[in-house]
């Protein structure tokens, strides 16, 4: 294994091998205009999407509202 220089590879932005899938995902989840924050954290599988810390706070609040809304005895807001 050469240790003389590092490496440079060129990826097209179409789907290719496993590695470029991860790079693609990295890009998709990191780029683009954010409107008022969208957070989805998936706990299933190895799939985690995290977008924006400020949204975590909103999300907890929103989640609480949803939980309250769906409970049979909850008072209406």
């Amino acid at each position: 294994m050469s240790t003389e220089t590092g490496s440079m590879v060129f990826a097209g932005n179409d789907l290719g091998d496993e590695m470029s899938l991860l790079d693609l995902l990295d890009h998709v989840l990191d780029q683009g205009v954010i409107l008022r924050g969208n957070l989805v954290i998936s706990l299933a599988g190895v799939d985690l999407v995290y977008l924006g810390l400020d949204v975590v706070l909103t999300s907890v609040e929103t989640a609480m509202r949803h939980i309250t809304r769906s409970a049979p005895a909850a008072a209406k807001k």
Partner: protein
Amino acid sequence: MQEPANSEPGPESMDLGRPESRIDCTPENIEQGLAKLVLSLIELLRQLLERQAIRRMEGGSLTEEQVENMGEALMKLEAKIHELATHFGLTPADLNLDLGPLGNLLEK
């Protein structure tokens, strides 16, 4: 576990997922998913600490012993994180989950 029909988690909420929409939800996967998130956060902290340590070392105001202790602590922390990651079947790449604006802490 049935959820009432009108409880729709919005995109802003934790997607704990309705049973019918989950493809690969097992207790092991959830555990690994959580581990990935937690260790990713810890890895971010470790990197921040590493940068701070290097800065202080460069600052010249620390004794040799202090530098040595700091370095050793960080070294052990990194080894421990890798050990935990391996335990959960995670690779070093898995710990590079970028955490939005938290990642900006690495700037500067």
